[in-house]
């Protein structure tokens, strides 16, 4: 009996953990990504870890591969948007790149785990952001292809 309880308890612990830390994005074209941690490094070699929103990184970013667009959520009220200039999806990795206001960016998303690593580089400064993505239902609006 005690063994059964232990097993059930282990499963209960393992299931939510798996769903939080891994989300399979294979085949999806719309994601919701949450920025978890940000690090800012300056050319002098100084780096600082900070919460993403203190570096103007939105807490949540919607990615629409078909529309080639990164945007903030409606709920945030921020109304920010950036166009994806380069998109590749190869060997289970999605790479998004672009350039906006003297900032070059790269998103590397691992489809199987849903984890995302972002680098935003500008003169004398680089911001690295780590986060996790989950799928969103495909958009039926004009932005969808």
């Amino acid at each position, binding site marked *: 009996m005690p063994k059964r309880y232990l097993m059930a308890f282990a499963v209960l612990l393992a299931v939510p953990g798996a769903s939080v830390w891994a989300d399979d994005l294979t085949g999806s074209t719309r994601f919701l990504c949450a920025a978890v941690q940000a690090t*800012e490094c300056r050319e002098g070699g100084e780096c600082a870890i900070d919460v993403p*929103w*203190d*570096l*103007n*990184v*939105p807490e949540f*970013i919607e990615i629409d591969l078909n529309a080639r667009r*990164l*945007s*903030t959520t409606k709920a*945030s*009220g*921020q*109304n*920010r*948007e*950036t166009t994806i200039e380069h998109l590749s999806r190869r060997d289970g990795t999605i790479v998004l790149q*672009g350039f*906006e*206001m*003297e*900032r070059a*960016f790269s998103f590397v998303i691992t489809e199987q785990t849903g984890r995302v690593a972002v680098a*935003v580089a*500008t003169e004398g*400064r680089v*911001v690295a952001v780590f986060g996790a993505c989950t799928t969103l239902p495909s958009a039926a609006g004009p932005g969808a292809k």
Partner: protein
Amino acid sequence: MTVKILAVLGSVVVGAAAALAQTQPAAPPPPAQPAPQKTLAATLNVYVFPTAGQDAAKQSTDEATCYNWAVQNTGSDPFQLQKQAQQAQQQAQQAQQQAQQQQEQIAKSGEGAGVKGAVAGAAAGALIGEIASDDAGKGAAYGAAAGAVVARRRTKQAQAEASQQVEQQSQQAQQQSQQAQQATAQQIENFKKAFSVCLEAQKYMVKY
């Protein structure tokens, strides 16, 4: 009828003139009594009693002699020390007032910083373009909410640092003032000892 009124008016005028004549020679105020003169020792809160029947003039001369002797022996003059202490206290008060003013200015400078950021960020919406943007006015703006948060946080940090610095300076000034006061009290105490010894040697009983 008019004759009666004139008679009444006349009597009123005469009465008023008489009253004025009575009040005019006002008595001059009594001359102020001169305050009792304090002896040199009394101003220092040192009590001196002549045990050998010395008169007031002799006591005054002896106190002056002993005062000079004590100044030479201790190297401190209580009246000078009191002046210096007062000056130091005034300086400390001024420093504290300045610190308070600085604190108020710091607090005022923080007001509206978040609002400015938010206003600057209300216009367009670059997602990547505004990442790690220190200057809210540079380039296209970002979301109002995010702008406000960043501006407020940075202002808070700057305010906290400035405030801490001002507080440290104020505390330092206070400590210096306290140390100076303690040193002055010690010097006055030493002076009183020397002053007393001198007077006792000249047959006075001394307590302080």
